[in-house]
Each structure stands twice: as structure tokens, then as C-alpha cells.
């Protein structure tokens, strides 16, 4: 180039906004939230929905119920540590637990593709049975549909569940208070990396298994010990970052977390380094975050460490003064970084 004047300021014109559904609308990140805020919430507006919890909390007479639903479309259907069947049970059980409820009854809707191998279906149902038994829930109603070959992806499963919120338990973002400590139940990213490795045929030299688990078990232990859980949130598609930002925004509170305190296993860290992924945004299916008063945090940690699904639990940060819905992380080297929701899909980088 000959001179500065040759520099042109090229840039593309804006894309048509959301003219079609893209995969990012289902990633659990910012586009999913926009879909919620601009389409679903206005259409179905009511106090239970507007509470934006993992499930709805309902009152029927003197009984307080939690009601939740989730659909499962994972590929591959079988991956290290689980399959779509136990994922579908554990996911809904965990959503109910995040409302502070004891899960009781589940429904399951199966959409099967013509030609789907019976042996695989049997394996999935068997896993659902085991997962339901482990979580102490009963599958009490269901539905099966078969679509033509090419119109499905083997199998899609929807599960819904109801649970009872016992005693005077009250778990909600609105209860998050300045000074609360934030407890993470274990290390990050196992599910996302396990599924990605299985889907893409990536070999990291060590098998990383999904963390899929019924989170009702540790949550009920905490409740039984009398811990006043202010808020709970399970980490799913958008990872820890998205869960924290969701709660910060709903609670209109600010959180401060320390990168050094956040556990990520060596194999997951290695895989994330190779793929250029940030563990804060990688999916989990067996981890949750709890907000508790500082005075109760040590007791809560003790209870969690005594439970097989909470052995890696640790305090990762606290609620600070402020109502901006902002999450800030102190980095390894002492810098500050704003934490945002997942934007679009997590895409592997070039180099």
C-alpha cells in the first residue's frame, strides 16, 4: 500500500435480525434469553413464569409445588458418563431441586425416528429407570410419537416433573443478599467436553465423562441440615458464567468471583486449551451454584463435602454491594474481568 489514504474503512452491513432460528437461539446464552424476553414471556406473561426460575413455583391450597420441563436433543445419544435417557431424568430432577423442591413425579415424552434401533431404545429406557430410582422419583405418565425417517434425529425426549417445596423453604434469586457467599458444587465443564469429544471424535488421551447427576440429592441434604439456601442455580448449556449472570440480573445484585477459586479438572482444562474454549462457558449437567449467608457457608460446605455429588464444592465468590446485575472476576494475575453470558455458540477458534 502506498499511503495512509489507501486505508478504507470497510465493514459489512447489519444482518437481518433473527429472521430465522439459528442454533445459537438454543445455546442457553444471550440469544436464548432474547427469545424468552421478546417472544415467550410477553405471550404467556404471569407471575410464576415472570419469576424466571429453573421451574415454576405454584401454590395449591397449603401445598407449594415446583413444576419444570426440559427437552433433550443431545448428539451423540450415548457418551462417556451417560446417555440421553439419564440426562432427561437428571435434568428435570435437578431443575426441581433448584426450586428447593423434593422431586416426586415425572412425565416423559419420546419422539422417535422411524428406523431407530430397538436395542438403543432399550438401553436409553434402562438408563432412565436407573436414574429415576437413584433420584427417588416415579415416571407416572408418558407419550410416544414416531416421525418419518429424516424428520428426527434418532430420539428426542421431553421430561416434565413436579416436586414439593417442604416446610418454609424459599429459594429464589430475589433472596440473594449483599454479603452472601457463592458456593460451586464441583469442577466445571465435564459434560460439555465429554459430549464434544464423543461428537467430534476428539481423542484427548484420557476419557472425560459427563457429570450428569440428580442434584436433588445434595440439595435435599443441605435443606435437611437446616441450611437457609437463598438461591440455587444448576449449570447447564451456558456454563457457570451464564448461570451467574442470569441470577445477578434477576436479583439485581452484583457478584465478585475469583478465577483462582474455580475448580476445573486437568483433562477439561487441557481440552479447553486445545479447543480455545473458556471453561466458564462449557456445559455441565451435574453442578450447581448456591447462595448462602456468610455465617452458614462453612456449614453448607461441610454438608456438601459429605455428599458424593459435592466433594469438590468450594466458595468461588460473594455478593457485593451494587444492583447492576454485574459479575466481575478477579483473574489469576490479579486483573479484573467482566463476566457476560455466552454469546452465540461456543465455536472452536482458528489458532
Amino acid at each position: 500500500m502506498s499511503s495512509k489514504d489507501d486505508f478504507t474503512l470497510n465493514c459489512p452491513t447489519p444482518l437481518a435480525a433473527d429472521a430465522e432460528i439459528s442454533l445459537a437461539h438454543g445455546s442457553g446464552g444471550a440469544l436464548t434469553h432474547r427469545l424468552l424476553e421478546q417472544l415467550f414471556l410477553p405471550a404467556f406473561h404471569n407471575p410464576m413464569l415472570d419469576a424466571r426460575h429453573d421451574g415454576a413455583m405454584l401454590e395449591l391450597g397449603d401445598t407449594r409445588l415446583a413444576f419444570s420441563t426440559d427437552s433433550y436433543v443431545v448428539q451423540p445419544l450415548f457418551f462417556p458418563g451417560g446417555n440421553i435417557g439419564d440426562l432427561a431424568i437428571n435434568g428435570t430432577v435437578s431443575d426441581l431441586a433448584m426450586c428447593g423442591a423434593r422431586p416426586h413425579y415425572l412425565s416423559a415424552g419420546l419422539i422417535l425416528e422411524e428406523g431407530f434401533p430397538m436395542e438403543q431404545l432399550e438401553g436409553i429406557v434402562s438408563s432412565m429407570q436407573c436414574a429415576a430410582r437413584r433420584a427417588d422419583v416415579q415416571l407416572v405418565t408418558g407419550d410416544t410419537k414416531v416421525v418419518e425417517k429424516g424428520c428426527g434425529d434418532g430420539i428426542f425426549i421431553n421430561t416434565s416433573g413436579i416436586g414439593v417445596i417442604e416446610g418454609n423453604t424459599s429459594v429464589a434469586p430475589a433472596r440473594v443478599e449483599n454479603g452472601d457467599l457463592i458456593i460451586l458444587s464441583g469442577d466445571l465443564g465435564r459434560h460439555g467436553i465429554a459430549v464434544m469429544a464423543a461428537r467430534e471424535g476428539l481423542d484427548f488421551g484420557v476419557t472425560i465423562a459427563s457429570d450428569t447427576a440428580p442434584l436433588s440429592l445434595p440439595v435435599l441434604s443441605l435443606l435437611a441440615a437446616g441450611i437457609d439456601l437463598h438461591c440455587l442455580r444448576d449449570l447447564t448449556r451456558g456454563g457457570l458464567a451464564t448461570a451467574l449472570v442470569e441470577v445477578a440480573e434477576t436479583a439485581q445484585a452484583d457478584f465478585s468471583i475469583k478465577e483462582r477459586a474455580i475448580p476445573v479438572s486437568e483433562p477439561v482444562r487441557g481440552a479447553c486449551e486445545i479447543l480455545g474454549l473458556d471453561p466458564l462457558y462449557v456445559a455441565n449437567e451435574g453442578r450447581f451454584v448456591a447462595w448462602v449467608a456468610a455465617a452458614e457457608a462453612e456449614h453448607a460446605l461441610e454438608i456438601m463435602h459429605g455428599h458424593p455429588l459435592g466433594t469438590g464444592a468450594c466458595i468461588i465468590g460473594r455478593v457485593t454491594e451494587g444492583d447492576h446485575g454485574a459479575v466481575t472476576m478477579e483473574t489469576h494475575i490479579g486483573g479484573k474481568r467482566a463476566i457476560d453470558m455466552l454469546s452465540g455458540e461456543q465455536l472452536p477458534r482458528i489458532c
Partner: protein
Amino acid sequence: MKYVDEYRDGDASQQCAETIRQLVTRPWLIMEICGGQTHAIVRYGIDQLLPAEVELLHGPGCPVCVTPSGSIDKAIEIAARPEVIFTSFGDMLRVPGSSTNLMNARAQGGDVRIVYSPLDALQIARENPERTVVFFAVGFETTAPATAMAVYQARQLGIENFLLLVSHVLVPPAMEAILSSPDTRVQGFLAAGHVCTVMGYDEYPPIAAKYQIPIVVTGFEPLDILQGLLMCLRQLEEGRAEVENQYARSVRAQGNQSARKMLREVFEVVPRHWRGIGEIPQSGLGLAPAFADFDAEGRFGLANHSGGDSTECISGLILQGRAKPAACPAFGKRCTPEHPLGAPMVSSEGACAAYYRHRAHASPEPVASESEAPA
């Protein structure tokens, strides 16, 4: 994790930052070339550890950011062909062309697949002999050797259904383009460690001498970057303009000889259009005549896509280090990672995306409705 943790050590980083604070006596402007370094600086808050006198400028070293919209348009045109399986690195999928992106091309039925290596694309070609597999070959000297290897193997194996849409670019010509600008503010460079791992750094002494500017080959971890900055600032304070290698654990002066040989065999140096910057002579790699059979542009006889770009996005200024993302009126408002106006907001190595993700940003404004968008 050994070999990573040491370079993210908090105490060592603080010590290095303290040495920099004691060294610096006046304002200095240093540009890190590589988007990977930009990302690390913003992600770890490295700039927050520096004295106020040191300002970091973010360079054009983001392969996604500098790929011109015309190339994206060509990719979309190819991806729409029913016989084609179009393969690409993941973060190219959301980069806007002049009207849409590859993600939307996939939503509209194009067979667009993410691969981690051009060799994966070659494997897809072997498994699908009835389809034509096209790989979108973008990136700097870091990704070019793998592209070269894929096309070399395709030739060896006699695979004829494998084509490349090539948009590779070279770093040193971009550095010269920035330095030759009359109002350049850059006083020192951190050169991209991975590019130098492949190419070595024998191209840099003439640049350092001609423009009297220190160049430090630098790695990507926080401590690497702080050490690179320290070396560069020491040169500036002492009035030196030399080429130094901070990233010696990876970079040799002569680079990776076999990779360079492969590049020389498969590619030739060509002029290349850089998004936001314009055409820079001798700044890209194109397939050498001996490998022209693998050129997708030639095979499909593509229309000339000049890329109808708007002028609202200031990515040209961003990529030349002449403006910071927050200086853009659209930043974080009408330009977000979901609806990027420009490529620097898309890539994880783009400066705008790094600031958007890691620094507080303004609330997005409602995006343009469909009726306001161009047809």
C-alpha cells in the same frame, strides 16, 4: 497444568509489572500484533497492571477479522451449491459477509461443517467421493502450513474432489503497512509468537532498522506478554530498536524449516485485500500454479464479490490500532457478538469481542428490524 500454570502465575506477573512500573519514565505506545495476545490482555486484565504511561494498541492479527467480506461472499456462494460440502474453522461461520454469513447459509440448507484442521476436510473428501469438499483456508502463517499439507496430500493421494478457497494472509507486510502510515502512533511491537514459531524472525530486523522500532517476539500467556512488554519498554527507554525473542521456548530464528518448505512449494505470495485496511501488496498466500487444480475460485468461476460494506463500523481504525473498541458509537449497542456489524466483534481473537466479553459494556439497543435491513 505444567507449561501453562507457570506462565499464569499471579506473583510472578505482579513482580514483572512492578519492574515495568519502575522502568518507565515517559509515555509509550506498544502494539501487540496478534489477536490471541489481545484476548489474553483483556481476559486477564494485563493492561490494568501497567503504569498509566504505557498504552497498548491492538493490532490486525486476527485471521477472522481481516478476512474480507468478499471472501465470505464467495464462501457463501460455494456453500449454497448442492454438490458441495463446505468446511471451515468454527469462528468463520458467524463473520458477516456483505449480506449474510455462513451460519445462515447452513440454516438455509447449505452443507456447512466445522472442522478443526484442513486434514479433517480432506478426510471428509475421501469419505464422500460423490461430493465436492471445499475448505475455507483462512489465517496467518500459523494455519497456512496445515492447508499446504492438506493440498499436498490430496495431490499425493489423487483426491480430486477436494478444493480450497484460499484467503491466507501474512503478518510482516501488515506491520509495514501500519508503520508506513504517516500518522502511525506505534512505537514498539510485540510480534506474534506462533507466527514466528513457523516463520522464524529473520524478516523482522530490516523492519526494525527501517522504522527504528523495537520488535519483541512474544508468547501468549500473561507472563509472556508482561515479559515481552518489559523487553520492549527497556529497548524504548534505552533508545534501542532491535529484534528480541521473548518466546524462545517455542521460536527459533529460522522457524520451522519443513513448514516453510511446504509453504514455498504449495503457495505463492500474492496481494491480498484486508478487511478494514484495504489491499496490501505481497501480503497474502495463494495457490502456486502447480496446485491451481485445487483452487475453488477457478473451478466454480465465481462472480467478483467486492463486498458491499457499510461505513458505520470502525474496524479499519480498530485493526490499525488507531481506535479502541469503546470509541465506536455502535460498540455494545447495535454491534454485539449476536449481531456483529464487523468481524472484530465476532472472533474470540477480535478486539471488540474481547472488550465486549471481558469488560463492562453498554446495554444493547434493539437491533435493526428486518424492514430496516438491506434487501
